[in-house]
């Protein structure tokens, strides 16, 4: 399996299972036999019903959570803990409330031992990019939900990761800001050559951004379908009005609808 052909893969996920054991309660099977490989520089999205284990998979890839079985490899090396090659944006707001915007964005760099001056200079670039110029000295509680989420994204980008793990990063944004951030993300991705794995509930977002969309089945999460997105790049918002775009969104929508229904039925039972 680990032959030469795999070397171009930035990320491989081999037979990942995850069962949460809970004392005194039935265990939860969150992920079942996930197999994926993501090429270097590829942009991949995961869509799926709520509770289908998407965030759990991202935590395992980031090295925050051990899998019950299976291996995650980054550039061929098995992941056992977090590393500088990956950065994650969490589904929840994860900014330090006692640090200003610039200190939050510089956080990963400072932890890695970058001198304060350099860390702040880099942080400033990503603050500008996230459209937060002028808010450097604000505290998170002084920002709107959408602005905070942009700080979260800027903080992950600032450490210049090889693999960017994004867990619904634009969920808190209004439609306009969301589209601006999508375009920004595409720009950054194209310039940096980063590999991106994104979780989203917005199917049009997944199609617009990705080279490939992975549709998860309801719990336990498994890969139900991998859908290549052969739309030309560079992409702009015009693309969303094309027929091919609509057809892809429709197709994924139908796949998910089925899974969401069974997820809802399961939760009722």
């Amino acid at each position: 399996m680990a032959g030469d052909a795999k070397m171009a893969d930035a990320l491989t996920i081999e037979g990942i299972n995850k069962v949460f054991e809970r004392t005194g309660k039935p265990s939860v099977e969150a992920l079942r036999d996930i197999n994926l490989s993501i090429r270097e520089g590829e942009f991949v999205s995961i869509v799926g019903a709520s509770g289908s284990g998407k965030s759990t998979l991202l935590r395992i890839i980031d090295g925050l959570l051990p899998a019950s079985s299976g291996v995650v490899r980054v550039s061929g090396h098995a992941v056992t803990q977090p590393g500088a090659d990956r950065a994650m944006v969490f589904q929840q707001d994860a900014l330090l409330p006692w640090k200003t915007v610039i200190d939050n964005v510089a956080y990963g760099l400072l932890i890695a031992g970058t001198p304060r001056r350099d860390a702040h200079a880099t942080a400033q670039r990503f603050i500008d990019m996230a459209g937060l110029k002028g808010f450097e000295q604000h505290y998170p509680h002084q920002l709107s939900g959408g602005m905070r989420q942009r700080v979260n994204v800027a903080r992950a980008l600032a450490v210049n990761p090889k693999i960017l793990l994004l867990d619904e990063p634009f969920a808190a944004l209004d439609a306009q800001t969301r589209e601006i951030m999508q375009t920004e993300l595409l720009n950054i991705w194209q310039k940096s050559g980063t590999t991106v794995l994104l979780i989203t509930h917005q199917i049009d977002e997944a199609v617009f951004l990705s080279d490939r969309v992975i549709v998860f089945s309801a719990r336990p999460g498994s890969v139900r379908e991998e859908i290549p997105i052969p739309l030309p790049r560079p992409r702009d918002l015009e693309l969303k009005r094309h027929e091919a775009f609509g057809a892809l969104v429709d197709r994924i929508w139908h796949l998910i609808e089925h899974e969401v229904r069974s997820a809802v039925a399961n939760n009722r039972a």
Partner: protein
Amino acid sequence: MSTAGSLTWRGVYDFLEGRSRAAALLRMLISVAFVLAVWQLIATYLVTNKLLLVPPADVFEALGKEGASGALWTNALATVSAVGAAFPVAVLLGVGIGLALASSRLLALTAGPMLTALNSVPLVALAPLFIAWLGLGFASKFVLVTIFTIFPVLVTTETGLKATDKILIEAARSFNASRWQIFTTVTLPFAVPFIVSGIRVAWARALVAIIIAEFFGSFAGFGYAILAAGQSFDTATLLAYVIMLGMLGLMGSVFFEWLERRLAPWRQE
């Protein structure tokens, strides 16, 4: 004319409700003046028995007399030096034990229950015992204040350290932070406002403890002076010392509230 009058009144109210330091000071002065006026009225018209209540003017006169004779300063020195020595020690011990409890499960399991039990015993009841052991004066005061004051600091330190948002710790781990880095950049800053509020409670308890220690046995101090004045039915002097105590309490609480706001601005809004 009447519109102008109501306008100026509104201006006064707006100013008083404002956040400026002058407004806060003026609010305080007005409420003090109000209390003094009511007290004076009650003492002149309702409770005229001077054994029970004396008017504020008498109390200030007594205060002046104590100041002139030097008794006030001797007593203040005795009380303040004992609290001033014991309080920082108690805070350091409280934070230290709280840290140990929060970081060692073994310690939390073994020593935790015993400390909880100790905390629920009204420790001031042990005052006569300490005085029997350590004699009258500084040593017994010091020990009693320290022991009585440790607990709120200890409890809030442990609680604060354990209350840290899990997502913040995960984000730090995601950036490959070491355990020490997580402690210094996440857990400890999160706990600081908890600790300060514990210290604020501890300050009030320290004053209770010192007075009780001085009631039971000492040759100087506010508690000693209050007891002596009570025994000679000198209500004016008794109240004068109570006011001094009140000032000590107020100064501490204003200072620690300010500190809390300074250290945790994000908790205000």
